């Protein structure tokens, strides 16, 4: 499965709502699809010890991360009857309120998309080497850890 071409999932900066809208539009010619499910991760302005997160700066071990994304993708296509799957993750600065993760799955039937989307998002959170520096308004920072 690792022989197939591995394309990059990363985009510099936030993922825009226009980009998401356009991705949806592109699927309207695929008339075997009956259900889409979309997950969006958005940067929260968490307040920690009285300081507010203003942005997260994402870095990644890019080669390994793209390989992991590819493996997750292949595993999901094997487990679930999906017509399409798209994953995008931000690198660099993403401000609070902006979108840093966009996962989009489509299938003829709805049950499939619910299961597949949750599987993919949990796999990404657990296995992809992406790192997040939570930057506070006073320019101090802490390192984000997925739960």
């Amino acid at each position, binding site marked *: 499965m690792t022989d197939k071409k591995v394309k990059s999932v990363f985009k510099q900066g936030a993922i825009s709502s226009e980009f998401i809208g356009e991705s949806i539009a592109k699927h309207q010619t695929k008339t075997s699809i009956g259900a889409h499910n979309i997950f969006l*991760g958005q940067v929260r302005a968490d307040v920690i010890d009285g300081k507010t997160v203003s942005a997260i700066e994402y*870095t990644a071990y890019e080669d*390994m*991360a793209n390989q992991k994304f590819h493996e997750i993708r292949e595993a999901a296509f094997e487990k679930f009857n999906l017509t399409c799957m798209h994953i995008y*993750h931000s690198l660099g600065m993403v401000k609070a309120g902006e979108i840093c993760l966009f996962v989009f799955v489509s299938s003829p039937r709805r049950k499939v998309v619910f299961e597949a989307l949750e599987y993919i*998002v949990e796999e*990404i*959170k657990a296995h*992809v*080497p992406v790192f997040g520096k939570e930057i506070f308004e006073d320019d101090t920072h802490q390192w984000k850890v997925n739960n």
Partner: protein
Amino acid sequence: MKITVKYFGMIAETTQCEEEIIDFSGNFISDFLKILHSKYPELKNKGFQVAQNQELVSLETGVTGGEIALLPPFAGG
């Protein structure tokens, strides 16, 4: 053998570099980490996983050369 070592996130903050080349003559990942721990004593207090050539490995894995990366907790999404 020459090993390319990569550091990320809070680990790179500790080592104050993102990549370096270390000449290594031992056998196991555990041996390799001893070298890093003596160079960067603060690493002992940090949680990280080790990847060799992009695959997660354990302390008992043999060092095969190429690339070793120290990966702090993941925070994707």
